[in-house]
């Protein structure tokens, strides 16, 4: 079937092929390869891993990387729990305002990260936010602190799990769940034994995508974090700072680390998808 669909090859096929490869090569592939090259190659010195040794020996950089990882993991866990719950709610139940809610879920994907940061500061800012001063007097600081970074990260990556899980939930239907219920399974047992195995792969894609997005968030985190050295500076903020301080080698090295993680995440999703397609 797949073969019969292919149109006969004409000169146009090759022209389009060259255009696509050229565009992607110039816009994406070549620049990405250059960054990897620059991370290891110093003019007049040759190949070296010195920049990486420097990063791993710099306690402030290690702190930034650690903070990024903590924020990303916590935000991913929150979005995992929230995402699966909301997906079940949206697919399996009817309630007024459902259409509005499902449209609003996509909002974080189209809002500017700077707007996200600003919105969080306006509500949770310690000085004159809506809830900020109250929380602060209770001893909870959100903006310019780790909870703020986690919230900003969770905001921008919110829809990713939901968008993966909802179509799968719609497709598998409720027959098996009803069968289990009629055989006397409790709702927790049904979820754990029937629903979760069905959406397992969608959840895994969602988590990988969320993790990749969370590790790399920059704009929203920049607004809420205050970029305090050794405290609220994340790895992406460090890239900017190193570059602006003329430590290009360091900036390229951190960028290379971040880029490797995100490329690995895409590859994982790519391999899982290919496998899923074969199984089906």
């Amino acid at each position, binding site marked *: 079937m797949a073969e019969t669909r292919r149109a006969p090859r004409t000169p146009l096929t090759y022209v389009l092929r060259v255009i696509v490869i050229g565009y992607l090569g110039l816009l994406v592939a070549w*620049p990405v390869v250059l960054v990897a090259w620059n991370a290891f190659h110093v003019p007049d010195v040759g190949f070296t891993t010195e920049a990486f040794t420097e990063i791993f020996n710099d306690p402030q950089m290690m702190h930034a990387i650690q903070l990024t990882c903590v924020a990303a993991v916590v935000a991913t866990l929150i979005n995992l729990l929230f995402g699966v719950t909301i997906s079940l709610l949206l697919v399996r139940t009817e309630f007024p305002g459902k259409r509005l809610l499902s449209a609003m879920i996509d909002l974080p994907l189209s809002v500017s990260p700077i*707007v996200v940061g600003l919105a969080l500061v306006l509500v949770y800012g310690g000085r004159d936010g809506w809830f900020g001063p109250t929380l602060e007097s209770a001893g909870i600081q959100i903006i310019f602190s780790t909870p703020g970074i986690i919230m900003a990260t969770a905001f921008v990556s919110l829809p990713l799990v939901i968008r993966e899980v909802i179509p799968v939930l719609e497709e598998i239907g409720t027959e098996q769940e009803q069968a289990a219920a009629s055989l006397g399974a409790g709702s927790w047992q049904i979820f754990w034994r029937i629903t979760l195995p069905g959406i397992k792969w969608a959840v895994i894609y969602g988590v990988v995508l969320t993790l990749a997005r969370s590790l790399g968030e920059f704009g929203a985190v920049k607004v809420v974090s205050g970029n305090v050295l050794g405290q609220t500076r994340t790895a992406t903020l460090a890239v900017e700072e190193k570059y602006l301080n003329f430590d290009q080698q360091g900036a390229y090295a951190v960028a290379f680390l971040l880029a490797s993680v995100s490329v690995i995440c895409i590859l994982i999703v790519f391999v899982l998808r290919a496998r899923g397609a074969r199984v089906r």
Partner: protein
Amino acid sequence: MLWFSLLVLIPLVAVIITASSGGWSAFADQLTNEQTASAILLTIRAAIVVTLINVVIGTVIAWVLVRDKFWGKGLLEVIIDIPFALPTIVAGLVLLSLYGAESPLGLHWANTSTSVYLALAFVTLPFVVRMVQPVLEELDADVEEAAASLGASRFTTFWRIILPSLTPAIAAGAALSFARGMGEYGSLVLLSGNLPFKSEVASVRILSAIENDNPEGAAAIAAMLLAVSLAVIVVLDLVQRRMVRRG
């Protein structure tokens, strides 16, 4: 539900309330400030141009990925997703390495308005491709063959048969790409230099308003961007409904 309100809804409402706190004229004043207006215009122009580029090249890329078959196609699939996954600040650095001061191509686009178009084209690349690709895969080849057997040229087949069924997907991708372009920040920080009147975009203006302790000004621009995002969500919702009805 409570978490969603605390995290998303209440903060976004706060932006709109802060923006409208000074009344309509104060809101309009913030937006018509000369530097702000120029930043907003550049952002809108760049987002529109890049969206149009994406509509054309994105459809072509999707076409090649679905209909053509050659060695290394899997690699292209991975390359398309890179702009999604790459941290935006790294995306800026990546573009700077090829189009910046030390460009091996001899193109020095850093700190010019061209760099804004370039960065937006990079970060919005996957939207149209990823929306169009699945639709193109599902498309029934029979209709095309029928058209061809009735004497339609390949161009006519494409224009009359294929394109109309792709339009909703292209529109959805274009809407997402426009919204993303309007709000882009991270990839521009290092690349564009943020020169006022030249390469400064709306998001950068918001940030400098925050840093200058002018939350009303920041909220005014943010509310405008938010309106664009909401419009895009509405377009997406309508398009998705249409696609579901047809399917």
